[in-house]
């Protein structure tokens, strides 16, 4: 990637448990660093105003939108992307299983961000009400499902967790 002579900044960060020491130009967004530099294409881009949440990742345990953070700001951070969920190339974690079981996805473009949203939500609140789930999902736009089955899936995942 071109840096057009601008200063590059050294950053050390951990992504999905793998430590990276590299340099980035200041203008590079975290989402582009994740997608282009690290090649982790499960983190998506759906808008340019931070509204859609397709780029959501977990940063130091909290859900953030990686299009509103510079890669250089992630220096020293622990990032988890959708690629960190489920064992191996085929394994689904319980939240992913619930989405599959309850048809919580259609085109799948918003799905990684929504699954990570659900993961952090259930970590903070293991048994959220429908209203709490809706509030938590507000920053993740889905254009296919009308949210109904996404909410069903999260409720099911919460139930499974409780059991």
């Amino acid at each position, binding site marked *: 990637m071109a840096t057009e002579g601008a200063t590059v900044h050294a950053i050390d960060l951990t992504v999905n448990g793998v430590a990276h020491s590299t340099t980035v130009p200041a203008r590079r967004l975290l989402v582009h660093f994740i997608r282009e530099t690290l090649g982790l294409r*499960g983190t998506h881009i759906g808008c340019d105003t931070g509204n*859609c949440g397709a780029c959501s990742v977990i940063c130091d345990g909290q859900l953030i939108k990686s299009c509103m953070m510079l890669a250089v700001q992630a220096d020293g951070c622990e990032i988890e992307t959708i690629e960190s969920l489920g064992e191996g190339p085929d394994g689904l974690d319980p939240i992913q299983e619930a989405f599959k079981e309850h*048809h919580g996805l259609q*085109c799948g473009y918003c799905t990684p961000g929504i699954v990570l949203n659900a993961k952090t939500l259930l970590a903070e609140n293991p048994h959220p009400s429908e209203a709490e789930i809706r509030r938590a999902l507000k920053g993740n736009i889905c254009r296919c499902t009308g949210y*109904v089955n996404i909410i069903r899936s999260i409720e099911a995942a919460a139930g499974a967790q409780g059991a």
Partner: protein
Amino acid sequence: MSTPPGETTFYPEVEQSDRLGVWSGKSVPRKEDKRLLKGQGAFVDDLWMHRQGHVHFVRSPHAHARIVSIDVSRAEALPGVYATLTGEEVGELQQPFFQMAPEPAGLMKDYCMAVGKARYMGEPVVAVLAESAELARDAAALVEVVYEPLEVVVDGIATIEPQAPVLHEEIGSNVAWHGVYDYGDVDWALENADHVVRIDRLHFHRFSSTPLETTGALVNWDPGTGVVEFRSNNQMPMFAAMFIGPAIGLGIDHMQFSSQDIGGGFGIKITSYTYLTALALLSRKAGRPVKWSESRWEHLAASAHGNERTFLDIEVPVMSDGTILGFKVRAFDDAGAYLRYEPLGAVIWAQVVPGNYRFKHVRVDYTETLTNKCPVGPNRGYSRLQHLWLIERIVDIVAKELNFDRVALRALNYVQPEEFPYETPNGCIYDSGDYPAMLEQVLELIDYEGALKRKLESAGSGKRIGIGIGSTLDSGTNNFGQSRIINSALPFSGNGEAAVVRLDLYGEITVTIGTSPQGQGHETTAAQVTADILGCSPDLVHVAAGYNKAANTYVGFSGTYASQFAVTGLGAVMGAAEQLRGEIVKVGACMLGAEESDIELADGFVRLAANPEAAIPFIGIAATVFANVAELPGELADSVTLNCRYVYRPPFTVPDHETKRGKLTLTYASQVHAAVVEVDDETGQVTILAYAAVDECGRKVNPKIVEGQVHGATGHGIGAALYESFEYDADGQLLNSTFADYHAATSLDVPHIATGEIECPSPFTPNGAKGMGEGGGAPLSTIASAIEDALPEGAHIVFDSHNNSERVYDLLRSAALGGPRGVEVISR
């Protein structure tokens, strides 16, 4: 199962498969989901090619301007910039795109970028290719374009006034198409009706389903072979090819299209062929693969919008018992600056001329116009939802003005269950349905009685309760012959889809289809029907993901659009699977030394029905045919390939250009929605308290997938009804070109959607299924209906399909202000 008597007068009898039912009809979890849930999907922006450059488009800030000069020298001088492409060059490198409109609109010269003149804000003027996307944008900022701003027209009706600026000089006016659809005898009806309800104006607004993945492509013009590879998220590749090929001199043999996962389409990704053309030219010029990912603001301003339509001078003849005889209307459809799928929208609505009702006399004087706005393209419910919204508004307004109960009036005027198959005034055949039963069910789902009580109790509380109903049709499987109604010279008719089902070398069953899914679960449903026909588990069936022209089969109509996969796509898969089954049985019978009639297929084995122990696994059949063929008798070896292609063809004839009559679509899925809303008397804010949708789409292959489509279409409709509207100012500037101002409905905006279903198998399709997924925009009708129901006596009618808080506030106030209500009744 064969079609009941009496229906053969409409279509030749259809043999329906009796093998379905073990797997199809069940909510089998989707094959697609694992990769999508793990972030392993391959969307267009995930693709990469060696030496690729990144594209950024310089776009016109003017809605209408002559391009005086373009200077790319400073941009090209920037290190890391590979090439630029200007409209001027495009004018020389590209033939204008094929136009479907008859002359004079057919004379339109449409190019992939602005040539000489920009006609809408955001129209691409220059393309810049550089080593990184950031750098391409840096360089784009250095391109100097001198514009001479021209007068702008944004009003879809005023644009045909003589003083309006003409967008396309070669056409000479801003009329894209005009025609009168006249069915029955509406003048007689108006003279003989007990009442005539006159509605001044209804307006259906401009919006888009805005797929979450924007448009993008990775295009490579291979200098060696001359083959251009389009890896894109275009959702109707063979339609795109029809425009791109002639425009830049490429035969279909020199165009390769592919897509795997597409992040939503909803029709909006059909017209991306203009960008694909520009990228192909840029790739050839630069001698590199070129990659482009549209930004959200580019998508909102310059991809495609849904059709905006205004209805004037509506006259509705009604008998005293409530029978609505039909209606008369002047419709103005605003196509924006170019015709990129239009004027097909000028006929597509005619698939549902009377909506769900027994209207006999309908006259629509239809004009499609051009304005300095983003070109329109098909958008979920394309062209029918505008018309269906008009019809539902008519029914509600008639009920209110003549004091009929809205539920009873619908039940009375609906096409009745015993009337199917039902022929509409323009010769379309509604295959099956039971609208009264759906209405009854949906009202139960929202607790209609309870809602009526709540409405009474709410009086004077500052919160007004309104109940809304919306009935729609989801007409599926187009007869492309309807294009001849707008232009008799067009060489299209019928429809079809192709599939190949193969028993592969080591016993695998593989399926390829010509479709380009965007989340509809084709891999899953195709595997379900194949499994049923071949007597195995769907897990044994591999369905190739996505569209690939080189690897998959296709026909001219291939793609994923217009509610038809369950019929055309699965029809093709079923036909191919049946052929393969026949070959497997032949070979199996020969190997088991039995008659074909003694053979059954089960659990992936060919066996003797009488003696299941005598069985050969599919791999045995495949191994014999592919690697041990000398063991087979020559005539059998010569006749089987285990590689079966089938093209499903709906039984269409060519509609009549003169009378504008014909069978325009094969199936008619339907939905009836109902809602209870609360309107804040002080602010006009609308809150949905209850929402329900009942759908009917024939025999379902995967009920969960169908329900998901109902949810999604409902979410889109609710968003459009209350929050989503493209608004242009007088200069033709789009005032919501980001998701901050184009408010895509969130999890807090779309309420829980209760769903119900009934099943009325289609007698006309090989599996009894009907295409579905568009939903007909039912929520737009339902929400308008509910808001109107909440308004005080004497208020103006709900006249727009988009009702934000301020518009509702104005409607609330209109009662007190008095003045015209937008409707009058003439009674005899």
